[in-house]
Structures are given as structure tokens and as C-alpha cells.
């Protein structure tokens, strides 16, 4: 398998990337880990004339937690760093877990959070966790900066809100809610190199024995990240009894719009949404430090 011809540049600063994109626009593709892009180019799914390699830009691969203010993660941060960095494991556990199940050891060493989100596959393991942490995508171009909620940034399978002259610099996650916990699970046939058939993330904050705040997100069951809004409304302000969690899980199942494909039938996926919803909600609750 051979790659098509293209021109390659490896800028050292974000400004240089902006300048290149202003000129090359949709003839260029950003290269980070390459674990999606290079494979897709070998399959001739993409034939960019220009490749802009951002892995040499140090400022794009930093994780910056500001106590009380939240966390900014550079778009070129390696998945294995997101998996292993202490502040993510402790404060954004669902994201660390999501990162830990991507691909294989090698893929996690090469791939980046920017790539995983901008590739916009419905099964992306960092996306559901990022959504439950209210993640914003920080976008820049020569014309200025803007930020978009990740839920709105992914518009369809493989499609994001990026304009041809823009690229993603970083993601901002809000400060974890006080008294909160998170969890992430996926269902797939294999332990590694798997495209999950359903994934589920939860972020829950408690006030006494009642749920104060909650976000639920599911993946692989819709073209875009799907919030379990009905289930969230059921659970917010309530004591999370087994019975109520069961009802909420069913609401998530009912909200999902899965398809039949080679990995699973829509029926099975709908069923598994319910299974994972229960499991993940309970896990998130159990992880809240007393």
C-alpha cells in the first residue's frame, strides 16, 4: 500500500500552522499521530496536497490543570499521556479510561486527542468522556480564535465544524464538580484494536444522597455524540435508587439511534446501551470520594 504524493511541512509554532492553512486551506491536512490520517491516505480516502505535521509544536502537547479553573489539554497530546497523567486519572477519570482503551499500546503512543476528536468517528473513545466534562474545542486561524462545545463541534460521522483555514489548538475541560465522580465503559468483541459497538460515559455530582449534577454521553449509537438528556432529567435532584437507574438506563436505550453493521445489530446495541448506562452510572457514583 502506497501513499499518494504530497508536500510536507513541520512548523514549530501555531502561528506558522495558521499561515500555512490560510494559504493551503482544504488542500492541506493536519498530521499529528497519523494513526487515522496515514491509514486513510493509504486507502486513498484522502489525497491532501499538503501535510502539516504539528507534532513538533511543544505548546500543543501540554496538559495544564489550573486548580479551581479546569484543565486545558493541547490537541497534539498523546493518548498514552492522557491515559497516564495523574491529574487526568484523578480528576477526569472517564477520560483517562477512554484513552486507555484506544487501539493498542503502539496506537496510544502515536495517536493524539486532537486526532481522535477531529477524525469524528462516532466510536471515538475520548469523545463521550470529553462531552460529560463539558469540553470546549479551542479553534484558531489567521482570522482569530473561537471555541465551540465539543458536542456541537462534531456535526456528523467524520465531519467537524472546522473551516478549511482553522485547526484545533486545545480542549478546555471545566473544573470537576465538587463531590463528583466519572466512569467510562465500552462494549466490543476484542480487548484491543477494537471499534466499539457502544460506549458510555457518566459524570455525576452528589449533594447529600441526591444527585446534584449529571451528564451522560453515549457513542457509536448515533452519527454524533449523544447526550442522555431524558435520563439526566430523571436523575437530577433525585436519590439514585436501583429502580430509578434502571428507568434512566431504559431512557438512554430509547434515545439511541444505532445502525446495523458488521460489528453488531441495532437491536443488540440498543440493549447494550441500557446495560452500560446502568454499569457506568453505578461506577461513577461509587467513585465519588466520601
Amino acid at each position, binding site marked *: 500500500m502506497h*501513499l499518494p504524493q504530497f508536500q510536507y511541512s*513541520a512548523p514549530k509554532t501555531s502561528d506558522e500552522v495558521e499561515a500555512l492553512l490560510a494559504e493551503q486551506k482544504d488542500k492541506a491536512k493536519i498530521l499529528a499521530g*497519523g494513526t487515522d490520517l496515514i491509514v486513510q491516505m493509504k486507502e486513498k480516502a484522502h489525497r491532501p496536497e499538503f501535510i502539516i505535521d504539528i507534532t513538533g509544536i511543544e505548546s500543543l502537547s501540554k496538559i495544564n490543570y489550573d486548580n479551581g479553573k479546569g484543565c486545558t489539554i493541547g490537541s497534539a497530546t498523546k493518548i498514552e499521556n492522557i491515559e497516564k497523567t495523574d491529574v487526568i486519572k484523578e480528576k477526569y477519570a472517564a477520560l483517562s479510561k477512554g484513552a486507555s482503551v484506544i487501539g*493498542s499500546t*503502539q496506537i496510544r503512543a502515536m495517536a493524539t486527542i486532537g486526532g481522535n476528536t477531529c477524525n469524528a468517528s462516532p466510536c471515538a473513545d475520548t469523545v463521550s468522556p470529553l462531552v460529560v466534562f463539558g469540553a470546549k474545542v479551542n479553534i484558531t486561524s489567521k482570522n482569530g480564535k473561537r471555541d465551540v462545545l465539543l458536542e456541537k463541534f462534531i456535526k456528523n460521522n467524520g465531519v467537524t465544524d472546522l473551516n478549511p483555514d482553522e485547526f484545533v489548538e486545545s480542549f478546555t475541560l471545566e473544573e470537576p464538580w465538587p463531590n463528583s465522580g466519572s466512569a467510562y465503559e465500552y462494549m466490543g468483541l476484542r480487548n484491543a484494536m477494537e471499534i466499539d459497538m457502544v460506549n458510555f460515559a457518566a459524570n455525576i455530582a452528589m449533594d447529600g444522597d441526591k444527585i446534584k449534577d449529571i451528564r451522560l454521553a453515549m457513542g457509536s449509537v448515533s452519527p454524533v455524540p449523544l447526550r442522555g438528556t431524558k435520563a439526566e432529567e430523571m436523575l437530577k435532584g433525585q436519590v439514585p435508587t436501583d429502580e430509578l437507574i434502571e428507568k434512566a438506563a431504559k431512557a438512554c436505550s430509547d434515545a439511541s439511534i444505532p445502525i446495523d453493521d458488521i460489528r453488531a445489530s441495532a437491536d443488540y446495541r440498543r440493549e447494550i446501551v441500557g446495560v452500560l448506562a446502568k454499569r457506568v452510572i453505578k461506577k461513577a457514583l461509587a467513585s465519588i470520594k466520601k
Partner: protein
Amino acid sequence: MKQALELNINGLTYDVVVSPREILADVLREKLGLIGTKKGCGQGDCGTCTVLIDGRPYLSCITLALSCKGKEILTIEGMEKDGELHPIQKSYIKNGAVQCGFCTPGMIMSSKALLDENPKPTEMEIRRALEGNLCRCTGYTKIVEAVQNVKQGGKE
């Protein structure tokens, strides 16, 4: 447009001229004669092409050669020292972890990345570290044993 590129491989500096579309696996094999690194699926699934880049396991079949500028690359050829095999290589042979040998270079590089970080891994830790390397011959049991039995945690 072809570019001159200096690659640091196994402690040596190699000068090559590459076009941007050339992948590291091909440059190693075709331009530098380092054929220890194998090509399997060509799309990052099988792990046969695994090399270490700055100590981390990378899939050389989906890595552009140009993106390796300034990095330290370690291939299977770099594992032996002064004619003596690395403890990991010795353990693979001693424990019957090599049959056809095609997955072996990639397996050994992934094993080295693991042992450099974690000299006494559990069975589950080994299986997880090697989850990106497929073997059609051995059923993995002997490979896991080989990694468990590496002397001195893999240090020479």
C-alpha cells in the same frame, strides 16, 4: 519534493534522501538494508513493523520518515551489543517464543518498551503491552513466559 534527511538509528546517523510519501518501514528496509523490521498489514493493525522512537513503540508502516527527524530510533538490529544478543532476545529463544519469527522483531521491540518502563510486569501487564502485536504461530503463551523470564528486567 525529495528532501535530505538525517536519521538517528541504533545510535548511528544515516543520511537519506526521501520524498514525503515514504514511510519509515520502507526507508529502513529499502534504503538502509535494515530488513529486521517486517511489514505485515501495512495499516497499523498487526504490530509487525514496531520500532522504538524515543523509547516508545511506534508502527513504522504508518509513520512518515520525515516525521522522524531528530528522534532516536531503535530497531531489532540495535538490540544486540558487540555480537551478543540482548537479554530479551535470549529469553525469547530460550523459552521457545519464536516459531516462524515474522512477528518476533515487533514483539521484541514492544517487550523492550514495556520492560524499560516496568522491569517486573505481571502476566496481564505483559499481555496488555503486547496487545498491538499479532502472532499466528505461538498462541502467545511462550511469548508471555519469555518476557516474564527476562533476566535483570531486560537491562544489559
